[in-house]
């Protein structure tokens, strides 16, 4: 008989081993999936996971995808630690792209070195304002922030569509729904020749370091932890639950907005109806895969970025459908959640029960 038995203490080993286990199981299942689809599994997995990393261009692409994922996931993780479930990072990202991109359009032809930083700050403000709506409704009317933030994602998407098909449409764009390309001075500088890697990646690294410091050393980080683990103890200590909700939602909204501004001022360079391949949702997986820990999130963001560009490379090399990317991401989260049980429980094989 197989039995699950609760561990007396949570297992530190499995806490860090389960993400690796989930990755291994995902790769194995992927191999099976490719075989069933009629591909050579080794070749397909190589195309998916190895080919994209062979040159500096590929590595640069990896950081471009990892940057928004890491920045958003850091913000989400701070909220998740306090049981504040911001599911609408995609919408906050969109708002950040609108406000950041709006500044680029506003100062078109009058750019200076001050403009990219201003756009990033503008993006953070836009995302924070969008996240302030669920924060207000939650603290004032106890409205569920999961639903509110998620629904606002679609509102943000429609707002962006309206802007790029209406008032902000490129007059020289042959009617395509997009804005004009931003001026050269509104774009983030790239770091190396021969790679599209831009200054967003160092910003992501700085965010990771800042979040680590916040969580480990600051009193607000401690309050977030207590509110998340044991709300009655937080009330007993006199920590304000409302303040934590506001702080975490504004912080995660601002970071998602930052990611949005980085996207439009970095690789895209204009506003289009679809500026994100679902970074705001994928970042939720990244946050959990990284165990809500900043360093873990950085690694998870790299892995997820690989799944994006791996999907593109597998499509190009083998003609696999792009939907494989979603399948891989879904399997990864599924295996992670399933193997998480090992953190709190252990498997015991009991042969027969002794006569009682």
């Amino acid at each position, binding site marked *: 008989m197989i039995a699950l038995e609760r561990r007396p203490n949570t297992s530190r080993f499995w806490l860090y081993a389960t993400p690796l286990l989930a990755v291994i199981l995902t790769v194995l299942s992927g191999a099976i999936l490719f075989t069933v689809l009629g591909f050579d599994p080794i070749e397909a997995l190589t195309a998916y996971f190895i080919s994209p990393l062979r040159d500096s261009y590929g590595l640069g692409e990896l950081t471009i995808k990892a940057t928004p994922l890491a920045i958003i996931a850091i913000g989400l993780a701070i909220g998740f630690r306090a049981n504040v479930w911001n599911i609408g990072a995609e919408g906050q990202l969109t708002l950040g792209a609108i406000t950041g991109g709006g500044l680029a359009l506003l100062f078109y032809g009058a750019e200076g070195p001050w403009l990219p930083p201003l756009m990033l700050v503008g993006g953070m403000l836009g995302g924070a304002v969008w996240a302030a709506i669920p924060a207000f409704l939650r603290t004032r009317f106890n409205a569920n922030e999961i639903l509110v933030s998620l629904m606002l994602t679609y509102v943000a998407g429609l707002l962006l569509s309206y802007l790029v098909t209406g008032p902000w449409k490129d007059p020289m764009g042959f009617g395509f729904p997009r804005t004009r390309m931003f001026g050269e001075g509104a774009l983030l500088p790239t770091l190396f020749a021969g790679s599209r890697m831009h200054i967003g990646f160092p910003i992501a690294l700085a965010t990771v370091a800042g979040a680590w410091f916040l969580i480990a050393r600051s*009193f607000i980080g401690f309050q977030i*932890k207590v509110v998340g683990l044991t709300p009655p103890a937080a009330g*007993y200590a006199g920590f304000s639950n409302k303040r934590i909700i506001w702080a975490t939602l504004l912080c995660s909204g601002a970071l998602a907005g930052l990611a949005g501004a980085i996207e439009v001022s970095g690789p895209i360079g204009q506003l289009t109806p679809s500026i994100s391949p679902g970074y705001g949702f994928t970042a939720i997986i990244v946050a959990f895969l990284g165990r809500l820990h900043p360093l873990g999130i950085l690694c998870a963001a790299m892995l997820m970025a690989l799944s994006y560009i791996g999907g593109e490379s597998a499509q190009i090399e083998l003609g696999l459908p792009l939907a494989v990317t979603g399948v891989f991401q879904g399997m990864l989260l599924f295996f992670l959640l399933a193997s998480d049980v090992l953190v709190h429980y252990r498997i015991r094989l009991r042969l027969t029960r002794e006569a009682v």
Partner: protein
Amino acid sequence: MHSETSPLTASNTPPRLRLREITKRFPGCLANDAVSLDLAPGEIHALLGENGAGKSTLVKILYGVQGADSGVIEWEGRAVDIPNPSAARALGIGMVFQHFSLFETLSVADNVALAMDRGTGRDPALLAEIRRLSTDYGLALDPTRIVHELSVGERQRVEIVRCLMQNPSLIVMDEPTSVLTPSEVEKLFTVLRRLRDEGRTILYISHKLQEIRDLCDRATILRGGKVVASCDPRQETPNSLAALMIGRAFDGPKAGKPVQVGDGVPLLAVQGLSMEADSPFGTSLKNISFTVRAGEIFGIAGVAGNGQNTLLAALSGERTAPRDDWVKFEGHSIGRVGARGRRDMGISFVPEERLGHGSVPDLPLEDNALLSGWGRWGLVRHGLIARGKSRQKAEDVIEAFNVVSTGTGAAARSLSGGNLQKFIIGREIMQEPKLLIAAQPTWGVDAGSAAAIQSALIELARAGAGVVVVSQDLDELFTIADRVAVIFDGALSESRPTHATSAEDVGLLMGGLFEVAP
């Protein structure tokens, strides 16, 4: 005390239940170590032991909730396997749990029907049967009432009737009196004696020594998972039973001399406090008034669920009162001041729930020192945690209050109940409060720790602080409190000095027979 029928232990009849060498090991502890026990028909058999002695584990094995690692259970002379509770019930074993397992939104009859798999509580035959049993045994009960309207004593009757419906020959009762008033206890004992006289066996689990001497024919004492003694409790004194239970001579808390309380402004003055409960099944407060002076211990007695939780939240500031002047501290109105502000003023608080309210279970002791001590100990500088200092404070508490743990890095959940409670009480006392409010400070704590905690509270009051103790345990209040008042259905009685009243009088008040304090 007395016993009309002596236990039937004729050597030729097999015992009703015999446990032989039952052993159960959990990760990190041996809960039952070769426990053997015989239960005869027609006896009330006490299972006595401190928390963690292995009583609950043994009962769970007997009722099929857990399997034993080794050992034999014999029922009426033959070995049986009890894989689950329904097998136990089929044999004739009934159980009345310490924490009631009733659905609050359903009727009494619905609850009985659910447990017996008998359709709904509208079945007239079932209603009649419940009525018959409850009148037979003097357990007044209306089967159509909704459980959340019932008092705690009535809920227990539901549990007992539900158990009796299956006509069990062995009834296991786990700490049945912990939530009852003294008069309810007396009624319960009458029922239990009657059940015994019908030839049923009762396994009575408790750590209340006087009750066991009043009620039980035999006692088996567990300590550290082992049977350490078996005796006739009527031949023992409470002190000798306590010594068997804790394994050494028992020291009660140091009794202090009567206090000299100041005549000036009272430390804490609650005046006309009324407040809604925050849950539909909570009890709202009705016009509560009392004062606490520096240097005294003020006891609030009462059966659980009579508004203690609402009152405690209003005193700690976790919920603020509707009006600022309903609660005053040193003459200043603080009704609208939150928990943090009150702690800064010098009011400390020990919640009833140690794990999950007074501490964060998953965090180490040094973080739990930070939890309530950050303000008064100055553990936060420029928004950053002073790690070294909070570790030192946790260290100081551990040392001063003899907290057994693996150090400041030990998670709160890894401590035993008594040690965690000592840590929490110590943490609050070492912040040098002017007023300490403690809820059930020794509930479920081993006797040694309980005495240490009570001594610490007395010492704090003698040093000039005010102490409020909310407790269900009258013995405790009469040991440490200078004055005592009773809370019933959200109202508070007038207070009386403990030397001028008796446990019996207070027990009557706990049943609600009082005029509300002006």
